């Protein structure tokens, strides 16, 4: 037998049992390599929030009244949450691209754990979000953000932002698996995201909105998470604020992760 014949020979089945964690980490490694090979996407992802920081800090900020605290300290937690909410789109767009290119079909034909593609994608997007949020912290400090709380509370607040980002990844995974291409994934997501981000306490106090909108704006998840993060960074967090934000995060994952995996099984 020649070396060539050995390369192409077909012996017995050798593949082992799938392990959900190692398979997910393999996929995460692949997705992180993708991000590293397209650094321009990461740059674009941070340009928009930086513009928001500059706009709200220097243009609109003066007209927005936030009694008791400087507007920049009010703004930055909103910016962090807004950044990861719009960033959650990336999960859906990436999955739609994989679907379009036939990669999902290849993965589904391999003896790997069913959850791995989604778990790996959301883990990679979490790593990406850590990077983006860290960058926004630096931008915030440069424009005068001065979190009053101790380091542990500030880190807890940022952890809340990242947890929310992770939960939203599962929501947009479903969008990405349901539409046929990445452009549609993007277009379908924006109308969901815009009201959540802008009709919230991210940029302006809810009390300044008309009454009918306040009911929605006060209780929707973006506001709840922004309020908890803001309170944590200002050193005024109440247990109930933190708990209700955490409940949203856990609740979204509990509902949407199984739905996304079910959608994945039927995808292609």
């Amino acid at each position, binding site marked *: 037998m020649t070396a*060539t*014949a*050995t*390369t*192409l*020979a*077909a*012996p*017995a*089945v*050798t*593949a*082992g*049992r*799938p*392990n959900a964690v*190692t*398979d997910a980490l*393999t*996929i995460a490694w*692949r997705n992180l*390599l*993708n991000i590293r*090979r*397209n650094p321009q996407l990461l740059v674009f992802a941070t340009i928009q929030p930086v513009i928001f920081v500059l706009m709200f800090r220097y243009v609109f900020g003066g007209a927005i009244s936030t009694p008791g605290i400087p507007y920049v300290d009010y703004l930055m937690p909103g910016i962090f949450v807004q950044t990861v909410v719009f960033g959650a789109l990336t999960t859906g767009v990436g999955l739609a691209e994989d679907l379009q*290119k*036939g*990669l999902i*079909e*290849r*993965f*589904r*034909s*391999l*003896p*790997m754990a069913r959850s*791995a593609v989604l778990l790996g994608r959301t883990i990679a997007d979490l790593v990406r979000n850590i990077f983006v949020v860290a960058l926004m912290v630096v931008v915030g400090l440069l424009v005068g953000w001065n979190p009053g709380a101790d380091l542990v509370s500030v880190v807890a607040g940022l952890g809340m932002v990242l947890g929310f980002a992770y939960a939203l990844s599962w929501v947009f995974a479903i969008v990405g698996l349901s539409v046929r291409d990445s452009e549609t994934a993007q277009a379908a997501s924006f109308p969901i995201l815009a009201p959540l981000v802008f009709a919230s306490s991210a940029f302006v106090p809810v009390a300044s909105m008309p009454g009918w909108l306040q009911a929605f704006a006060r209780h929707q998840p973006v506001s709840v998470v922004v309020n908890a993060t803001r309170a944590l960074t200002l050193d005024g967090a109440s247990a109930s604020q933190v708990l209700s934000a955490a409940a949203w995060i856990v609740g979204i994952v509990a509902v949407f992760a199984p739905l996304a995996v079910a959608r994945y099984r039927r995808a*292609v």
Partner: protein
Amino acid sequence: MELLTSSPPAIRAVDLTKSFGEVKALTGVSFEVPAGTVLGLLGPNGAGKTTAVRILTTLLRPDSGRAEVLGRDVTDDAMTTRASIGLAGQYAAVDDNLTARENLRLVGRLTHLPWADIVRRADALLERFDLLDADDRLVRTFSGGMRRRLDLAAALVHQPPVLFLDEPTTGLDPQGRTELWSFIEELVDAGTTLLLTTQYLEEADRLADRIVVIDRGTVIAEGTASELKARLGATIIEVAFDDPDAARRAASRLHRVGELAVDGKEVRVNVADGAHAMLEAVRVLDAERLEPRTMALREPTLDDVFLTLTGHAADDEKESA
């Protein structure tokens, strides 16, 4: 490598049906692929070839019927099936933003090979598929032919005994196609069982031991390439003239030689006894002082078979919904 006579076929489809809403993709398809052989699933676009492959590779559940790989039901035993098959599809499913080597290692890790084996297999496959010069280049810089070769290599990382190739050469230039064919022939020589779908009759003729012709979700013919050709029961005399007028005059005389069809400047005559009929045709044309530009006796091709079986040409895509 002797096979036990009792061993089940490597691939078996039993009365598979599948509908997508109103569209009946498969309406009862059955075939078997004995271990170590190549079956060509031949049919036009939309015939149901890809649906059959996707059922056999666990990507799709059939509405009814049974799909087996190596004697196991693919739905009941999906993980074992996935471990024993390789699939390369029409779209070269490789990651553009990874290198060729990273793509192969990715598949190796997802099929749970030991790391040392993954490294060795990836290198061996890169060399075998002439990708060693491009091993650390991002796949997004690859040509279409290189991507297909990498896609085929990716399907072979875990050395699956059963391979599914869904239109492996669609969209390739003739050179790329010939290259891929020789890789596939080598695989088959090494003992891999192969199910190949194609709309190229030449491809099925060259690669497949047996051919199943499928059209509109159902099997319409089955056999070796020569068996299928023999179903025409004829040899074909092709006579081409310089002008259609001469072709028509020749046709009016040649009809007593055999069943014929006129296509522009060309006359085709189906005959039973090739050599004898050729002589007679020459005499008839000479008596009429008709001088053909070319005159040839040829075996029927699979194109002729397809036209006869389905009433439409193999590349007549619009016909089948």
